[in-house]
């Protein structure tokens, strides 16, 4: 019994020390530990470290909860309009690949007419499509918002041969009509 006593004291001490040390090093969640390490190593000013704001809906949802995105409808509309303007400007700066642009505009025009029938013979107003070398911009107006939703969904579902991905904007006009704006990226 006497031989065991010193060993038991050492073990008890090790138990307590191990518990205290373990608590000290692991009490913070992994993400908090990671941020501490990162702030020690990264000397870039916070403003320069910030990622640019997301422009595509899927990326916006991935980083911002939906209630936050739609908390203020006026702000959401303004943000959406600003993103659309930015995408339009970027598309205007692209060089033109005439062969691809002409063929794709024709294919989209045929598809637009086809899906208008599929959506219940909806009337597509002010249709326009302009393709350059990497992106096509498609615009159209509809008397009813539901027509805009159906037509644009049918068009984009069937646009796999033309587009790798696309961004859709629908905005309600003061007269009740709806404006569709699509930016499709070349496949």
């Amino acid at each position, binding site marked *: 019994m006497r031989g*065991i006593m010193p*060993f038991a004291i050492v*073990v008890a001490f*090790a*138990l307590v020390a*191990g*518990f205290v040390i*373990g*608590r000290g*090093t*692991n009490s913070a*969640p*992994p*993400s908090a530990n990671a941020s501490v390490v990162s702030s020690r190593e990264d000397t870039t000013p916070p403003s320069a470290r910030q990622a640019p704001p*997301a*422009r*595509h*809906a*899927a*990326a*916006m*949802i*991935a*980083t*911002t*909860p*939906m209630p936050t*995105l*739609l908390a203020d*409808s006026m702000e*959401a*509309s303004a943000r*959406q309009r600003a*993103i659309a303007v930015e995408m339009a400007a970027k598309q205007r700066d692209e060089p033109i690949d005439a062969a691809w642009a002409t063929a794709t505009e024709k294919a989209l025009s045929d598809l637009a007419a086809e899906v208008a029938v*599929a*959506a*219940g013979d909806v009337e597509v107003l002010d249709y326009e499509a302009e393709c350059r070398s990497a992106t096509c911009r498609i615009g159209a107006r509809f008397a009813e918002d539901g027509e805009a*939703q*159906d037509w644009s*969904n*049918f068009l*984009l*579902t*069937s*646009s*796999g*041969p033309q*587009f*790798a*991905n*696309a*961004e*859709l*904007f*629908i*905005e*309600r006009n003061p007269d009740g009509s709806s404006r569709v704006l699509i930016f499709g*990226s070349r496949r």
Partner: protein
Amino acid sequence: MSRLPPLCIAIMSILWADSAQAVDVSRYDQQSAVGLCQAQLPAHRDSLRARPLGLTNDGTTPIFVNCGWQGDDAAGSTRGATRISVNVSNGGTTPIVVNCTLISGFQSGFVTQATYTPKAIGVTAGSGGFIEWVPAEVAGAPATIKLPSVSCQLPPKATLQYTGKVYSENVGS
């Protein structure tokens, strides 16, 4: 000395339990299209047959079918999808092309913005195939697809059989 092994185990257990971190486990949810998808227009519904193993277009013109998954848009959540898939088949006697698109977006009142990732697959008579999407294919390259929907154009005799979603779930330590 015979008490040494249990004591060592006790010490190691305490240290191990305390240092263990939260773990993300990969999950795969598979669901028949009948429980997840529906026709977009009333006219399309007339042609759609909703059977336990799939939704079939029994009409003579193409119809559009939409499917929506559960999502999680909480900040910092790891449950967003890392792969979305649909299985389609051709019950007709001629080859068909099935067009589908992944949609991730939001809509409220007068605001609609959505990201589309369209794809197409050719399916020979009597066979089937998968269309799959991963985050890298989506415009804006999100880390995961948090609120996925899919829209498919089903030609006559095409069936949307089932859907799949791969995601991570935090199961604690």
